[in-house]
């Protein structure tokens, strides 16, 4: 798949994305673009299609119509090379979804070895460094079931980073965590953002969104109602739906 993508073009480009589950249309024409190194937060009430959107971005779910391009790769192309796409896009889930039969270190090492065929010694060195980066040095040989939710989520972040993605997707990654462990995960994500990683976050952490996002999208019932830099969206929302939502959550 030849692409003519250059880093000055949007790294993620969604144009009029529609997605239906049977008769139910969940995404009703979403358009957004993300530049390299940008941090995007998608906020909105439950059921507004936020998670569906980012699941479509890495082709976990096919879109019904429209176009999603990642570094120039068309995700809805039936001949899509999913492996090529997933090397570029890492994803972290609400429920961590670690592989329970493998230790933290093995979880991080598995995909580069199995999927990319990289050398074990090199991958192990990188995996140890990543675990240290997410502040889990010393937990390498611990199984997911023995870790707290926040620790598991940080292993999941390290596992995604081990594939050296260009873009990270975060699907409500703190929603299942205890309040006291939310912070440690957010710190990790903030550090990633500061390192220049392109991040797309679906989140309910409004303060966090306000702090780290370059751009915030408010979605409701499958459409983007309003978007803008956090300082304007959070303080001077124009749309009545945005105002109502923000007044409920802030």
């Amino acid at each position: 798949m030849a692409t003519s993508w250059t880093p000055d073009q949007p790294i993620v480009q969604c144009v009029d994305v529609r997605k239906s589950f049977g008769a139910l249309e969940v995404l009703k024409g979403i358009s957004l673009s993300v530049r390299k190194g940008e941090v995007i937060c998608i906020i909105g009430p439950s059921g507004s299609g936020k998670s569906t959107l980012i699941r479509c971005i890495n082709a976990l779910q096919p879109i019904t119509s429209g176009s999603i391009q990642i570094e120039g790769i068309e995700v809805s192309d039936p001949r899509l090379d999913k492996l090529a796409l997933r090397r570029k896009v890492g994803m972290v889930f609400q429920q961590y979804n670690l592989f329970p039969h493998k230790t933290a270190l093995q979880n991080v090492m598995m995909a580069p070895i199995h999927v990319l065929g990289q050398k074990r010694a090199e991958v192990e060195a990188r995996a140890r460094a990543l675990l240290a980066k997410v502040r889990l040095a010393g937990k390498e040989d611990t199984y997911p079931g023995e870790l707290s939710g926040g620790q598991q989520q940080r292993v999941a972040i390290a596992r995604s980073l081990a594939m050296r993605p260009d873009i990270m997707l975060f699907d409500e990654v703190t929603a299942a965590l205890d309040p006291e462990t939310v912070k440690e995960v957010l710190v990790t994500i903030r550090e990633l953002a500061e390192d220049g990683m392109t991040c797309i976050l679906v989140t309910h952490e409004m303060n966090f969104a306000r702090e780290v996002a370059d751009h915030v999208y408010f979605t409701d019932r499958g459409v983007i109602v309003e978007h803008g830099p956090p300082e304007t969206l959070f303080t001077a929302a124009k749309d009545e739906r945005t105002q109502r939502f923000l007044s409920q959550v802030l």
Partner: protein
Amino acid sequence: MQAIGDWFQRLYETTGLNFSVFYDAYDWGRYFSGLKMTLLLSVTTILLSLIIGAFGALMQGSPSMLLRLPVNAFVVVFRNTPPLVQLFFFYFGLGTMLPAVEAAGMRVPLLSNVQWAIISLSLFAGAFNVEIFRSGIEAVPRTTLEAAEALGYTRLKAYIHIVLPLAIRVCLPALNNNLVNLLKTTTLAYAIAVPETLYAVKQIWSESQNVFEMMVVLLATYGILVGILVWLMHRWERAMHIPGYAR
């Protein structure tokens, strides 16, 4: 060894309890070769039935109807009919339809009764193993598979590295039961004159007139064999235990 033989001989002389296998070399020989045949049947049918189960479950999870349909038909046929009837079907039904072959100047059937017993029992237990493995595979959360998919795993690689290792752990207790049943079901081979333990012991009691004593030996033999199998399976289960993992 001599002391044991002497003790059982004395037991016979003083009480009339005739455990001939333990002091009579000829009876012991027959019993021991029966035991070896039982072990041969058990080990080969357990291994074959596991292979049948693993492949069957993989085919059953395939998106293609052409692969799923034959597996489902196989499971229904072998689960819904009695194993003894299956054995007779193979040995007396199919066996007589196959051509005979020349071996050492004699016309012999293409497959011996031992081979038919192995085939028949493996298929019987394999059908159950397909369902047992499937239950394990279905217990692996979809979200775990999704995480693998998001990391670039293909369907096959995810099966090998993630689904199967987790599925095996889930279905071990059920598998354990089925393999215990299979070991005990090898006695059915008696019906087509395979010289396994039941067959040998029956020969001994017919000649030595010690039905009760040989029954005790027979029950103890299977009790111990199953005990060893269960012990091995439990060791396997413990070795596969994941710290902190509770579904």
